[in-house]
């Protein structure tokens, strides 16, 4: 091997059929790009703060600052048991939304051209962000649950209930992440994409996450009962605390899967459009 020139001996006249990305290559590439996105998460102070510490502080805020007052208004005896599922979903939604910023940054800087000039399946770059978001969110959710247990959260869930809850939460994270990807592909700048994060921040407040919807004014209540987050929260709450789930379970699955089925193809189309101009 030469060390004095930049190029290794060139492979002249080597003409063979264009190599196609094999499944093994795609998996190896996905691994590399997931690693890239995870590094971004760890390096990006804002996202880490948003994803981990902010939900934790919200948990403490709701339990200790608002908790005393709110406890009086709900049927359940311990507000901490009521609010933890809500904070879990807030956490998940939150740091899924930062995916929008990652995607927009990739699309608006030269780095996407770099990836596209490589012999890889371009989509895997987005997939890396999605998987990293899932990992990041499950991690911060676990942290929130850990802190909640320390401050008196006492779930009644069996092992299977926990598995089901993690499944529903993962589905929710995926849904939020893909919606973020779509917004990231629409947004023309990282600033615009981060505005989306702000929007997502408010959805859980208008659900049964922190207070029962029965306590809201009629108009708001109509929205709250029929937005996707309420059935998801009621399902998670039912699984963890043994409250009645009722129709919430299938509504939660229909909402999440339904949104994924719409958002993923739309994102694919947006991605194609933005990478061929």
């Amino acid at each position, binding site marked *: 091997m030469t060390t004095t*020139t930049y190029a290794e001996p060139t492979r002249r006249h080597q003409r063979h059929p264009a190599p196609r990305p094999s499944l093994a290559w795609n998996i190896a590439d996905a691994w590399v790009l997931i690693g890239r996105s995870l590094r971004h998460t760890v390096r990006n102070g804002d996202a880490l703060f948003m994803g981990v510490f902010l939900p934790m502080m919200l948990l403490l805020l709701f339990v200790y600052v608002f908790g005393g007052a709110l406890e009086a208004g709900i049927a359940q005896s311990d507000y901490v048991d009521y609010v933890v599922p809500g904070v879990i979903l807030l956490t998940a939604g939150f740091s899924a939304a930062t995916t929008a910023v990652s995607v927009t940054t990739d699309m608006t800087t030269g780095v996407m051209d*770099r990836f596209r000039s490589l012999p890889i399946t371009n989509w895997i770059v987005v997939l890396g962000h999605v998987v990293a978001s899932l990992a990041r969110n499950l991690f911060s959710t676990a942290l929130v649950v850990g802190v909640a247990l320390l401050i008196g959260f006492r779930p009644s869930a069996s092992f299977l209930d926990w598995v089901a809850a993690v499944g529903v939460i993962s589905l929710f994270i995926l849904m939020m992440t893909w919606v973020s990807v779509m917004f990231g592909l629409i947004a023309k700048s990282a600033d615009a994409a981060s505005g989306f994060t702000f929007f997502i921040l408010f959805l859980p407040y208008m659900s049964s996450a922190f207070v029962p919807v029965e306590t809201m004014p009629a108009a708001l209540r109509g929205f709250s009962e029929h937005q996707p987050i309420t059935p998801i929260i009621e399902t998670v709450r039912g699984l963890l605390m043994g409250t009645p789930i009722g129709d919430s379970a299938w509504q939660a699955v229909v909402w999440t899967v339904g949104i994924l089925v719409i958002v993923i193809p739309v994102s694919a189309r947006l991605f194609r459009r933005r990478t061929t101009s």
Partner: protein
Amino acid sequence: MTNSHDYAIRASGLKKAFKGATVLDGVDLAVPEGTMLALLGPNGAGKTTTVRILSTLLPFDGGEATVGGYDVAREPGGVRHVLGLTGQYASVDEILTGRENLVMIGRLYHLGRARARDRADQLLHQFNLADAADRAVKTYSGGMRRRLDLAASLIAAPPIIFLDEPTTGLDPRSRQQMWDVIRDLLRGGTTILLTTQYLEEADQLADRVAVIDDGRIIADGTAAELKERVGTERVELTFASADDARAALHVVDRTDTAHLHDDATRLSLPVDAPDDVRHVLNALAAASVPVNGIGLSKPSLDDVFFTLTGTHAPHPPTPAEDGTPTGARPGTDTHPQTLSNSGAQAR
């Protein structure tokens, strides 16, 4: 299969339009293996579009192209295997370190982890980035980013490299470093397609120069061949005022090849023999146009460009030109590259 064995890069009749506006109007290129072609033209001439099409980033409307023997339209995967691309905007990951960028890209070229690491180390040293290797790229200077970007395109040692305006916006020292790297690549046998709006760059580096304007190749040849089109020598005349210079242009009356520089007080025209200079000076004296300074120079590619298109090509600003006007110092310098001002410097 195309007969592309002697040419590493070949394009014929490339056409591209954006929303009805023609950007490429039949571009033909042929770059023999192991040589370098400079695609020279002003902003908006179609240089970047050509590079993006040839590197499979952009679909095109007509024509054919092969890179490394692979058909650009039908075998993009093959093209990506033999090609390293360095774009106009450093396409590296800002959040990762320099080393992480190179290792990641090496692995995406499927070099394997160990080999990707070795290559990254090697390139970081060769590109003078070893000290900054473990710093996030967002802390890098413009020149460092460009070098890292170029290193990223070289990680898999591709036999063909595209360099899209690799020195635009770099300070003179960084530009010199980049040129050294490019020369080393050529010595190593790499085929290079370089785009530039700097005449000097094409002149310094390339085996052949293709001049592109308005989506068409308007001239193609060695730098020397192109220069022959505008005579063997040029005389540069400096005048006290723009009025004098315009009067002089009228007197010499060679509108096809004589042209005023951007500062409007200097006139450049071709001469074939020393007698020509005397004729010109006599004509000016007869018309009572005072000449402040005179000098002879070899024709620059700027002169070529002017002859071909009727407009000046932009060229890189030098530190003196960036600051305050240096003022007229007639006769102290006859090199048009350093004398002509950067008033037309396009962004």
